[in-house]
């Protein structure tokens, strides 16, 4: 009887705790942004996000984030693959280094990239104050996402499936396409979605290297900062809400693609 009660209560307590935590830490703050962004009515909201500079900043941010997400999808998977499947000297060290972009304050990342790719670039590549510089900064800070979501799945992947496929005459491309990829895809998409949403909101690493010229290299987060600094919090919240909605849309789309893929088998 006590055992029965426990199994009945535990899920409820778990769900309750999770809900309270999520609400306090995530849902209520996000809701407040939404509320502030739309408090002055749809017309003011529309004005704020269609202001030419806001529009340009949003376009740049979404485009850069898409590029960053796609590059991450391919390169992140490749790096995870190399780390798991291709033993090479120094692999353990590289494996440790992957997480460092997360540990570095992003403003420091921006500073380092500026020193490396700025006007006095020691490597002879000048990317600072260009849109390419924005993409490079975003790639730096989002690198771990796909690697770290794909890596454990790849580690757990049952080698016997591949051996079975090979014994049935499948070539290595067929094995990758029919056996490995379907198993990895959920993790790849989850990592890509994380990289995309992170790019959408990134401030610290881009604020130095982009040069912040409105219409040219100013990303949405810096635009939002400018609106806050100009005491225009409603516009700041409106642009932030747009960022949230685009991210949500992408997350939902990726989820649908994944479900559709899973149904097809």
């Amino acid at each position: 009887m006590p055992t029965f009660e426990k199994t009945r209560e535990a899920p409820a307590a778990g769900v309750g705790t999770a809900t309270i935590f999520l609400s306090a830490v995530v849902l209520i703050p996000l809701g407040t942004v939404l509320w502030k962004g739309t408090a002055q009515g749809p017309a003011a909201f529309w004005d704020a996000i269609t202001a030419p500079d806001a529009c340009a900043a949003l376009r740049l941010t979404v485009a850069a984030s898409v590029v960053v997400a796609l590059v991450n999808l391919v390169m992140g998977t490749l790096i995870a693959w190399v780390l798991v499947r291709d033993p090479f000297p120094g692999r353990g060290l590289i494996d440790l280094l992957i997480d460092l972009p997360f540990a570095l304050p992003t403003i420091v990342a921006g500073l380092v990239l500026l020193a490396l790719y700025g006007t006095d670039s020691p490597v002879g590549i000048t990317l600072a104050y260009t849109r390419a510089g924005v993409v490079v900064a975003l790639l730096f800070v989002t690198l771990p996402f796909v690697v770290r979501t794909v890596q454990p799945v790849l580690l757990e992947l049952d080698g016997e499936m591949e051996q079975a496929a090979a014994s049935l005459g499948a070539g290595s491309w067929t094995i990758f396409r029919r056996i490995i990829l379907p198993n990895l895809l959920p993790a790849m998409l989850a990592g890509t979605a994380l990289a995309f949403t992170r790019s959408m909101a990134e401030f610290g690493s881009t604020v130095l290297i982009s040069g912040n010229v409105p219409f040219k290299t100013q990303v949405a987060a810096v635009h939002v900062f400018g609106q806050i600094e100009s005491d225009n919090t409603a516009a700041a919240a409106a642009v932030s809400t747009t960022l949230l909605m685009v991210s949500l849309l992408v997350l939902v789309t990726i989820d649908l693609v994944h479900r559709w893929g899973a149904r097809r088998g």
Partner: protein
Amino acid sequence: MGLVVLGRTMKAGAALATVVAGAVACGGSGDSGGRVRLSLVAYSTPQAAYEAIIKAYQKTPDGEKVTFTRSFGASGEQSRAVASGLKADIVGFSLEPDMTRLVDAGLVDAAWNSGPQRGMITNSVVVLVTRKGNPESIKTWDDLLKPGVQVITPNPFTSGGAQWNILAGYGAKATRGADKAAGTAYLHALFKNVPVQDSSARKSLQTFAGGKGDVLLSYENEAIFAGQNDQPIDYTVPDSTILIENPVAVTRRSEHPAEARAFLKFLRGRKAQEIFVKNGYRPVVDGVPGAAAFPKPAGLFTIADLGGWPKVKKELFDPKGGVMADVEKGVGVSVEG
């Protein structure tokens, strides 16, 4: 059973957190033991000066019982933090609108600027910072418009302090605000030569130090600070430029108003003003040693000459319809077109 495990885990977590926090703990200020603790919230540029002044103050009879918590950050952010409830006894900002925000919020007395210094604590001027030896021989506002000259100045919408730079050029060309069309035209032309608009003055300095640009619009105190740190720069005080005035005040919510006011008085005294001068600032009282060394440009003007902050904010820095919003749009068109 589950709860016991949870409790243990939490205890272990708490212990771990304590250990980690202990490992990274810094040298904190010890317990004040019956002393008065004042909270100073200010913008970050004069941090070194404030540290030195606090040390000097604590050697005086008034100051020996006073300890300070200090918070330094971007002027606008500090002002918004105090408006949102950050505890502060004394607040110092880089420009008056950040103080006006607190007056509007009822946190600073409306009479904060009634004294002989009108609430100000330090002055400076906007200067043209160039590479060592001034290779492009840039000395005037017109020189900034030469083709190919790259001017570095922060974005005035993300950096309140950058508004001083804009106002200096605008006021010099608009004959102190009389000829608005000339001032506006100048800003349009100027921003065609601005390849980078950093989010703050310090970041602009960083950009310039990193080799980008021919001229940096900055404050005299920042240029002096950079020179003191052996940066290879020179600077010119243009014939016509704006007097930068930095406000300071005691808040109405202060729990120790008498002590806070005493410190404010010390800030305007000879000793503190001398420290400010050593850090590159112009003093707000007469007779401070070293003050004579600051050049007095013939065409020096103030924000009051331009009609005061509320007027200037509306005309130039309104994100919708202000002159600078237009200028940025113009930059965008030339970039995209």
